[in-house]
């Protein structure tokens, strides 16, 4: 039965997230944007206590997605500071055995000090083309030896240097096997041979650290390979490692869409509130040729926000029903990333000098919004995935 009503429990969670966003994130949002590499310690400690009861990024339902939207309405950069197993945890849940999930994830629900999990995929020479990674994992007795450089790791510094966290590193065990040789490995903080090389200065989401991590003869136990070490070459469509990386994206892309929507709605709310204070009313239902240009713009922004939100909810709902959602996840991510990029840019135009001034958060939201069109697959990659699915084309048929 088609239904858009939230359950009372969902309503409650969302309301709590909104309160958190409004009272704990908004007041410090500007500070941690200006002081880029400073850590919001107090906030992190509070969040760590909450997250221990907590949730992971996988098995996410409607409530979690909408909670993430609310949190990002507060601040997307601070949201990404949330301690917990994060994207690394998502990969472990998606690819790891029961034993591995227990071994690696239990520490995220205990201890007084916050911990972070991160995922390391991108390399200096490969971004969207994830199958082209050159970081290697070579077996040596009962260990794997990792060598390579990973960049753009969200929460990388916090996972490696600032906590007893972990990083899930994607490396190849057999370069000649292409995708089939790609495997995820868990490297725990403090492992010799793993170090943070630098932390990036960014356009937006500045409260979130984005690190480069180097692996130099980094030895990890053999059991830290997630899933099967076997390289299946016979059936290229059954490239287990790569497929699992992509399956992780099916879970994370709708979440990025939810994050995007939070930032977009922050901008929309600001515009509407500002206009309301000035006595400007948005007259829904008015014919187009009677609308003012501002009304038309705002309705267009709102409709685009709603379009992206519906696609996001559908992708999350499918996931919560354990139904395949690759197509829908990519559709949601492609739409949301671009929609909020445009919404926030337009909002600045509509607000004139208020939009451009750092006195308000709107200019920051435009900078924050843009990342959603880039990470976890750029808008273009998601268009490509969507196109392949609707055309029933392989990656060879549509490059």
């Amino acid at each position: 039965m088609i239904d858009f009503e939230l359950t009372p429990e969902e309503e409650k969670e969302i309301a709590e997230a909104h309160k958190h966003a409004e009272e704990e994130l908004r007041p410090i949002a500007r500070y941690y944007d200006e002081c880029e590499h400073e850590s919001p310690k107090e906030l992190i400690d509070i969040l760590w206590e909450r997250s221990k009861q907590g949730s992971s990024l996988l098995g996410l339902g409607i409530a979690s997605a909408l909670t993430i939207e609310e949190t990002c309405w507060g601040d997307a950069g601070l949201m990404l500071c949330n301690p917990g197993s994060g994207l690394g945890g998502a990969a472990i849940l998606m690819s790891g055995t029961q034993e591995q999930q227990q071994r690696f994830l239990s520490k995220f629900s205990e201890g007084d000090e916050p911990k972070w999990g991160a995922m390391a995929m991108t390399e200096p020479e490969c971004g969207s083309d994830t199958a082209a990674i050159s970081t290697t994992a070579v077996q040596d007795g009962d260990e794997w030896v990792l060598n390579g450089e990973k960049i753009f790791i969200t929460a990388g510094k916090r996972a490696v240097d600032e906590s007893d966290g972990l990083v899930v590193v994607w490396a190849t065990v057999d370069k000649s096997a292409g995708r089939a040789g790609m495997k995820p490995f868990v490297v725990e903080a403090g492992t010799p041979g793993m170090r943070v090389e630098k932390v990036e200065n960014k356009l937006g989401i500045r409260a979130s650290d984005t690190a480069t991590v180097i692996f130099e003869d980094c030895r990890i136990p053999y059991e830290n390979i997630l899933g099967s070490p076997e390289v299946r070459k016979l059936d290229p469509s059954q490239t287990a490692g790569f497929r699992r990386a992509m399956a992780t994206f099916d879970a994370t892309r709708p979440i990025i869409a939810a994050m995007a929507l939070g930032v977009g709605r922050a901008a929309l709310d600001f515009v509407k509130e500002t206009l309301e204070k000035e006595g400007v009313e948005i007259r829904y239902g008015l014919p187009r040729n009677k609308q003012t240009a501002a009304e038309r713009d705002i309705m267009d922004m709102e409709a685009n926000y709603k379009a992206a939100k519906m696609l996001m909810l559908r992708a999350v709902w499918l996931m919560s029903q354990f139904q395949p959602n690759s197509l829908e996840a990519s559709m949601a991510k492609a739409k949301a990333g671009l929609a909020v990029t445009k919404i926030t840019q337009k909002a600045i135009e509509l607000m004139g000098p208020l939009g451009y001034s750092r006195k308000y958060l709107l200019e920051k939201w435009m900078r924050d919004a843009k990342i959603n069109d880039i990470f976890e697959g750029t808008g273009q990659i998601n268009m490509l995935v969507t196109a392949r699915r609707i055309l029933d084309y392989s990656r060879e048929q549509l490059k």
Partner: protein
Amino acid sequence: MISFSPSEEQQMIVNMVKEFATDEMRKIYRECDESGEIPAQIIDTAWEMGFASTYIPEEHQGLGEEHSSLTGSLIAEELAWGDLSMAMHILCPSLVVLPVVEMGTDEQKAKYLPAFCGEKFKAATAALVEPLFNFDANALSTTARPDGNDYILNGAKCFVPLAADADLLMVYAAENGSTQGFIVEKGTPGLEVSEREKNMGIKALATYELTLKDCRIPKENRLGGENGCDFNRILNCSNVALSAMAVGVAKAAFEYSRDYAKDRHAFGEPIASRQTIAFMLAEMAIEIDATRLMTWEAAWKLDRKEDATKEASLTKTYADDMVLMVTDRAVQILGGHGYIREHPVELWLRNGRGFTAFNGMAIV
């Protein structure tokens, strides 16, 4: 609890309508567009599915099911996928039936509804749009003035589907600044239906201009009697219907151009294997899905009897843009072939272009 899954019953109805659209409508839609005629037989076949009588109370010979705009939007999408002209023709009687079922007085229900429960298609229609560039459904220039036991209607209307055949017309007019519905019977003095309109698209649908010159109707023909009607809700139900139809038209154009792009070779490979074409198709698919889901949400809100003005109007505007974008691209993907009437995409572009002008011409 959020869900995107139609009920079993809704799915059965969708399948039935889809089959009808595929087997019947799609066989003749080009012919109908060229000739401007829809065979009566196909309209009667559709009539048997009971789109009008379903929501008519049992005491008035209907099936007495609870009205659902959501189910209606699922039906409207499939019918419009088959053909927009035929879809509007088939659903046209609802323009009188649904407002009377929802807002009519007991007398109006008893007097007018049983006629829609017969075996043959019963034409009825609504006159909302006016031949003005700045038409506004909430500020009509057609007026209704009380005069003793009557109302006197004056004004001009256009895009009135099936006006020449309709036994009943729901005429919308301004009464003291608010829009109200007035049931006008065929042949009422002062009601003059002009010659059939010639439109860019929906060519198989017979639409008319009409004028009301001191057209006198009894007071009890005001929709809802003394209480009047909730015109906003009628407009919202209409916007949902038209949005669903826009999705249907767009889906038809998307599917055709997608299949063509996979078939058509250039430079040694299908044109669909080029990103410039593939990305056009991807964006079309994304926007079609988004619009459908927005339509569902607005319909869902209407079914809960909540005010859906914001949702329905935003969705309609979004759908207007979407269907034009999608049908235009479908023509573009076919290139020169898209411009030739051998292929259907030019027809869908002509139909798609109309949605910004279509107001109140369908209701679910």
